[in-house]
C-alpha cells in the first residue's frame, strides 16, 4: 500500500469533526456517567484515526486502554460520585471562562505552529527520514524481530518501556495507598453502591463463553507481538479485562475469589521485577543494563536471537504488570477501597 491511495482526507476530516463534537459534548454534559461514555467514543474515534495513519500498534493500545478499560474504570468510579454536578457559583463561572480563554489561546498557538509542519504522511518529513530508516533497515538484522514497533519499544528504547511499566505499577500503588486507608465505618458513600444479587443468566452465559476465548486471545496478542501488532501492554489489558468482565457479569467477590488481592499485588510488582531483573541480569553478564545480547551464552543462541528472546521476556513482564494493575485498579475503584462489594 502506498500512502497516497490509502489515505482519504475526507475520512480524516469526518473523524476529526466527530472528535471535536465528542470532546465538547463530554465537557458540556452534566452527568458523569454519560461524560465517561462519550470519552470512550472519543477514544474509539482516535483509534480509527491511528488505524488510518497505519499506526496499528498505537490503535490497538488505544482501543484496549483508552476506549475499553478506562471507560469501564470511569463507570465503576462514577457510581460513588454525586451524579449531577451542582450549579456553579458565580466565582466558579469566572474561573470557567478564564479556562476557556486560556484554552483558546493555547489552541491558536498550536494551530499557528501547523503552518510550517511537514505535510500529512510526507515521506520526506524529518520524522520519517532521520531515525526511522535506520530502525527499519537494521531492526530485523539486529533483533530478529519483524515488527519494528516491537523492537523499538522493547529493545532500542527498552529503558523507556521499563519505566512505562513502572508508571503503570505506580498508578496501582497510589490508588491502593489512597483508597484502602480510611476506616470504613466513616464512609458515607458505601451505601450508594449497587447491590448485585445476580440472576443474570444471559450475562453469565455470555461471560462463560467469552472469557476463555478472551484470555487465549490475550496470550496470543502478548506472544505474537514480534510479528504483528500487539505485545505486553495490549495483551495485559485484554487479560485484565477478562477478570473485570467476570466482576461485571457476576460480582466483585466472584472475581476476587478467582484472582485474589494478594496475588494481584504480587503480579503488579512481579512483572516489573521480571523486566528490571532481566536488565540487571544483562548487567551482571557483562553488558550494559537491558543489553539482551548478554543472554546469548546463557540461552545458547546468537546475539540477535538473544535480543529477540529478551524482548519476549520483557513483554511477558509488562503483560503481567499491566494485567494485574488493571484488575487492581478496578477492584479498588469499584469497591471504594474496601474490596468488599462493588459493581
Amino acid at each position, binding site marked *: 500500500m502506498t500512502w497516497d491511495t490509502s489515505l482519504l482526507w475526507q475520512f480524516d476530516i469526518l473523524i476529526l469533526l466527530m472528535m471535536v463534537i465528542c470532546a465538547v459534548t463530554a465537557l458540556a454534559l452534566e452527568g458523569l456517567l454519560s461524560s465517561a461514555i462519550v470519552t470512550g467514543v472519543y477514544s474509539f474515534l482516535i483509534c480509527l484515526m491511528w488505524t488510518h495513519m497505519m499506526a496499528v500498534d498505537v490503535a490497538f493500545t488505544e482501543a484496549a486502554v483508552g476506549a475499553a478499560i478506562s471507560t469501564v474504570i470511569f463507570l465503576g468510579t462514577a457510581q460513588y460520585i454525586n451524579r449531577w454536578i451542582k450549579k456553579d457559583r458565580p466565582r466558579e463561572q469566572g474561573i470557567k471562562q478564564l479556562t476557556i480563554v486560556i484554552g483558546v489561546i493555547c489552541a491558536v498557538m498550536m494551530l499557528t*505552529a501547523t*503552518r510550517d509542519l511537514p505535510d500529512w504522511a510526507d515521506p520526506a518529513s524529518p520524522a520519517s527520514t532521520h531515525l526511522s530508516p535506520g530502525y527499519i533497515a537494521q531492526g530485523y538484522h539486529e533483533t530478529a524481530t519483524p515488527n519494528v514497533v516491537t523492537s523499538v519499544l522493547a529493545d532500542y528504547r*527498552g*529503558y523507556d518501556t521499563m*519505566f512505562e511499566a513502572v508508571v503503570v505499577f505506580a498508578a496501582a500503588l497510589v490508588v491502593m495507598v489512597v483508597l*484502602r486507608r480510611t476506616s470504613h465505618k466513616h464512609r458515607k458513600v458505601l451505601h450508594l453502591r449497587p447491590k448485585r444479587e445476580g440472576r443474570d443468566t444471559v450475562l453469565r452465559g455470555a461471560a462463560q463463553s467469552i472469557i476463555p476465548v478472551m484470555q487465549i486471545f490475550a496470550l496470543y496478542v502478548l506472544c505474537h507481538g514480534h510479528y504483528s501488532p500487539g505485545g505486553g501492554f495490549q495483551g495485559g489489558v485484554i487479560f485484565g479485562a477478562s477478570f473485570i468482565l467476570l466482576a461485571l457479569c457476576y460480582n466483585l467477590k466472584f472475581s476476587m475469589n478467582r484472582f485474589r488481592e494478594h496475588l494481584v499485588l504480587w503480579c503488579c*510488582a512481579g512483572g516489573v521485577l521480571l523486566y*528490571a531483573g532481566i536488565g540487571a541480569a544483562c548487567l551482571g553478564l557483562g553488558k550494559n543494563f537491558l543489553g539482551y545480547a548478554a543472554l546469548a551464552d546463557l540461552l545458547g543462541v546468537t546475539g540477535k536471537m538473544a535480543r529477540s528472546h529478551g524482548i519476549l521476556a520483557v513483554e511477558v513482564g509488562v503483560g503481567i504488570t499491566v494485567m494485574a494493575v488493571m484488575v487492581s485498579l478496578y477492584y479498588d475503584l469499584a469497591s471504594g477501597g474496601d474490596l468488599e462489594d462493588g459493581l
Partner: protein
Amino acid sequence: MIDHAPVLMIVLPVFASLVLTLAGPLGHRAAYGLLILSIAGSLAAALATLVQVVEAGRPVHYHMGDWMPPMGIELVIDHLSAGILVMISGCALLTAIYSMHTARQDNPDRLHHYYALFALLVAGLMGMTATGDVFNLYVLLEISAISSYGLLARGRGKAYYATFRYLMMGTIGASFYLLGVGYIYIMTGSLNMADLSDILSRPEFKDSVSVRIGFTLIILGIWTKMALFPMHAWMPNAYSRAGTTTACLIAPLMTKVSVYVMLRIMFTVFSVDYIFQQIAWSRLVIYLASAAAVLGMITALSQRDLRKMLTYIIVAEIGYLTGGAWLANTAGYTGAVYHILADGLMTLCLFMAVGAIIYRTGVSTSVAMEGIFQRMPVTAGVFLIAAASVVGIPPFCGFFSKWYLLQGGVEAGEWVFVAALIIAGLVAAVMFFRLLEMAFFGRLDDAVMENGSQNAHAAALNIRMDEAPLTMLLPLVITGAALFGLGIYTNEVVQYLIRWSLPAGM
C-alpha cells in the same frame, strides 16, 4: 561496577520499591532498613560518578541496552547533573533516616507501600536528572509526579483536595511538556538531547514557528511543574498539608529538579543564541521571577502556619533561580546552578527542623516556636543556621548564591531583579527575626496555656528540655553542617563543577 554506576543509581531505588511493595509481612524495621540501604547505594553510585566526571573532565555516557544514541537511550552525566544527582540522593538519604518516627506516625497503615512510593520518587528524580533523552525525561517525570501524588495524599486534613489540585496542574504541565516534545520531534525526527541540539542549531530552524512553539510549550509545562509565579497556586496547600517526611522529601527536590530540567532544555537542547537572540522573552521572564521573589516572601511573612510559610519561601526561591537562569550571563548562571544545590539543602534543613518541632510540640503554627531554644537547643540552632542561609548571611551557602545572582543582575543591568532580590532578602530577615525572637524570648508556658494542645501541655509540665529523637537530630545536624560546608567550599564547587557546565556562547 563503576561503569554501571549511572544506571545503578536509578534502578536501585526501583528494585527497592518493588521489594518494599511486597515486604508488608517483614515489618516496618525491615522496610526502613531496605529503603535506607537502596538510597545509600544510590548515593554511593552518584558520588562515584561525580568523582569520575570531575577527574576525567568530561561527561560520562551510558548506553542503555548497548544501543548507540540517537537510536537508543543514553544517560549523560556531566558536571551539572553530577552535582545535582549527589544532592538528590543525599537529601533523600537524610530524609529516609529522618523518617523513622515521623513516617510511622503519619502512616499507621501501609508503611511499606509509603516507603515504596518514597523510593520510586527518588528513582524518578534521579532518572530525570541523569537522562540524555527528552522523551525518557517525560516518562521519569511521570513517575516522580505519580509517586508524589500518592505521598502527598497521605497528608493530614484536607490533603486530598490539595493533592487533587496538584494532580490537575501537574498533569497539565506534563501534557504541555509532552506536546512540546511532539512538535520538536515532528520538526527534527530525534529525541536525543545532543542530537537535537545539533539539528536545532541549523539555520533553517532559527525562524521556524513550530520549533518556537514547541519550546514555548515545553517551558510552560516546566514552569507549571516548578510552580513559578503565577502558576504556583497548587503548591502551598499541597506541601503544607503533607506528612512531615513527605514534605521533607518533596519540598526541596521536586521544584529544584524542574529547574534543572529547564536549564537542560534551555542550554543543552536549545542554545544560548536561540534563547536570548531568537526568543526575546528574557525581560518578561525576569519580571515574573522578580514578582515571584517579592510576592512569595511577602506572602510567607503573612503566614501563621510554619510549613505554609516555608512553602511560600520556595515560591520566592524559584523566582531567584528562574531569574538567574534567564539573566544570560556567567554570574547569573553560576548563581542559579549553585542555588539549586544551596536551596535544596536549605529547604531540607528548614523542613526537617520544623518537622522536628511539630513532632515534639504537636502545634504547627508559629506559636510552636515559643521558647524553642530552651526546649530543643540543637534543632533551634540548626534552624538558626538555615534561616541565616536563606536571609543570605556569610559564611552560609545562601549568601554566595545571592552574591552571584546580584552580580549577574548588575552585569545584565536588570535593576528590577536586583531590587527584588534585596527586598526579598530583607523580608526574609524580618520574618526569621520574628520567629527567632519568639524562639529565644518566648514564654513557653503562655504558649501552652493559649494553645492547649495536649502534647505541648504534657511537655511543659514534665520536661524542660525535650529534644527530638536521634534519628531526626542526626540528619538535621548533617544538613546544617552541609549548609556551612557548601558555603566554605563555594570556590571549589564553582571551579570544578559549575565552570565546566557553562553553556557555550555565554
